[in-house]
């Protein structure tokens, strides 16, 4: 009994850490939360104020003259890049999972899936390097003009100018590649573990193998797919380095087309901390902490939801993607 209690105590470090990260950020950003109010999430201006004038008092807080903190452009950038990343990643993930689970012989399957899933292990900053060095020049020279000339004629959001290559679309493509393996791996496991009898019944009814898969097996794994998509969503929302290196760090404006630069909440924290430290009143650093706090809350909710879904639907069985 004593042993068990001791273990339980040590295991308590996990909740303590999670709680203290969130609490610490909340406490640290308390002044900023009061000062910024709800306008924080609907204003489109991040302005430290005039740093070379003396601080003034506003709403009972000491700030630089002209200081306003609004992160609408970051929220939009984060949501749009995540949304587009999911739009690319979900279909590709499903396709890859299907092919891996059904079309490849099982002795090869292990190694081919492993190869593709290794994408998950590649560090974010290496994706950033690849995006920065080869993807941006490739997209801006060849792919974007082509896309604008074709799809751009139909959908205004895809029309030019095609800009510099640092863009919403570039960020989404790199993000998509980072989250595809989560979806592919989880779904492949679910497909393989569907009962054989289901498939046999469908085949026996005269369905082709693909029809059996598409109409019978895949719907059975729908819940796993939704859970995995949530996990991927969580990862995409918080991805930092790769996005920082390819997104163009847009400031204070919303993208008008898919080739416009954006910035995300996570990337903005990295790029702006040293600027924020210039503010002698400290409100800028606290407002950045507010972004980190908001991001922490969002990710806890999204990941919590994803795990709950997978937990309830899979009866507590573990999924492949950590």
């Amino acid at each position, binding site marked *: 009994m004593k042993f068990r209690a001791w273990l339980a105590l040590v295991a308590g470090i996990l909740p303590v850490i999670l709680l203290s990260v969130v609490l610490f950020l909340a406490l640290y950003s308390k002044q900023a939360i009061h000062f910024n109010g709800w306008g924080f999430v609907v204003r489109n201006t991040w302005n430290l104020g*005039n740093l070379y004038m003396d601080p003034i008092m506003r709403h009972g807080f000491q700030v630089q003259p002209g200081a306003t903190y609004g992160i609408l452009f970051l929220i939009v950038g984060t949501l749009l890049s995540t949304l587009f990343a999911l739009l690319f990643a979900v279909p590709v993930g499903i396709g890859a999972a299907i092919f891996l689970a059904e079309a490849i012989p099982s002795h090869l399957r292990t190694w081919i899936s492993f190869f593709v899933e290794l994408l998950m292990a590649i560090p974010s900053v290496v994706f950033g390097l690849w995006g920065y060095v080869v993807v941006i020049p490739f997209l801006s020279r060849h792919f974007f003009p082509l896309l604008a000339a074709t799809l751009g004629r139909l959908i205004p959001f895809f029309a030019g100018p095609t800009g*510099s290559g640092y863009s919403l679309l570039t960020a989404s493509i790199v993000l998509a590649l980072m989250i595809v393996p989560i979806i592919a791996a989880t779904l492949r496991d679910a497909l393989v573990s569907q009962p054989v009898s289901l498939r046999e019944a469908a085949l026996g009814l005269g369905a082709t193998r693909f029809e059996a898969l598409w109409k019978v097996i895949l719907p059975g794994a729908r819940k796993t797919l939704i859970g995995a998509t949530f996990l991927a969503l969580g990862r995409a929302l918080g991805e930092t380095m790769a996005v920082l290196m390819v997104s163009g760090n847009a400031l204070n404006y919303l993208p008008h087309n898919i080739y416009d630069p954006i*910035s995300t909440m996570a990337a903005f924290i990295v790029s702006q901390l040293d600027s924020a430290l210039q503010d002698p009143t400290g409100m800028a650093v606290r407002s950045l902490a507010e972004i980190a706090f908001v991001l922490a809350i969002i990710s806890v909710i999204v990941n919590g939801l994803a795990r709950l879904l997978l937990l309830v639907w899979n009866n507590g069985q573990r999924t492949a993607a950590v």
Partner: protein
Amino acid sequence: MSMKTGASRRKTSVVLAATLAMGTMMVSHAALAQTRLLETGSSLLYPLFNLWVPVYGKSHPGVQITTQSTGSGTGISEAVSGIAQIGASDAYMSNAQIKMHPAILNIPLTISSQMINYNLPGLNGRHLRLSGPVLADMYSGKIRYWDAPAVRAMNPGVRLPHQQIVLIHRTDGSGDTFIFSQYLSFSTPSWNNSVGYGTTISWPAVQGGIGAEGNPGMVNACKGTPYSIAYIGISFKQAIEKAGLGEAMLKNRAGRFVLPEPKTIGAAVQAMASHTPADERISLVFAPGAESYPIINYEYAIVNANQDGKTAGAVKEFFSWALSHGNSPYFMKQVGFVPLPPAIVKLSEAQIAKIH
């Protein structure tokens, strides 16, 4: 930022640190410790520090100086918080910052300037003429195309393309942003009233504008983006030439268009240096004089006057060396800087003497 490190907290920190269970390594390494200085900040000053440090290290083996290109904003804040012993900055600290941290000195080590660069395919060999108000209109989104009337009027005979201007600005807290926005503020009242100047400013929202990290990031972004414009420190001139980017002639206070050369920078120094106060916090931007280049500045070392005994000696010695040997033509030529005039060297020496 008002997080103080009380004695009790320090104690907890030491206890916690000990739990890392790597204590044994501490003893063995610390015994042969040399004096280590961390220099961080201005990416404009970084190339010069990288020339200085190896040479200095040869004659002063007891000192190890780490150099880091993080932007002037970081240079100032890390010198203030004590993370770095030497902060490098193209910007002096504001009155409010000085009031909060009276022990921090702003010591000019040399004089630098800033180029306005652009990537206009086919036109990069020509020096376009640009003025403060035109640049202000570009960066506030009033001028969106390269062939706008205001730009054309300034550059007769140049066939400017009808292409959207891609504005590049710094994302990090930057002394380059500081002096660039000073040029716009001092030359253009409307910019001064709306945006003003600072190491970080609220850039007007102009569609397609890119943020880049440090001068290196500016060079790369400009190089990779046709029809872009950027402000880049003179110490990156070689990189600019290698990248094949254009360099603008800027309109000075007297209304003449000039390039940043030793002659024009020297003229601006001549016009401004005598106004330098004892604490040396002064802008040299938009100097009067027919020959003066409009964007020049002191390159500051931001340093706390109160240092540990050993560190103080090392910092003072290095600064004295920087003011004498460090300002020699051998170094200055490679980065395009100009040395401090003797009167300013005296002021800087007086400030260095305050470090203890």
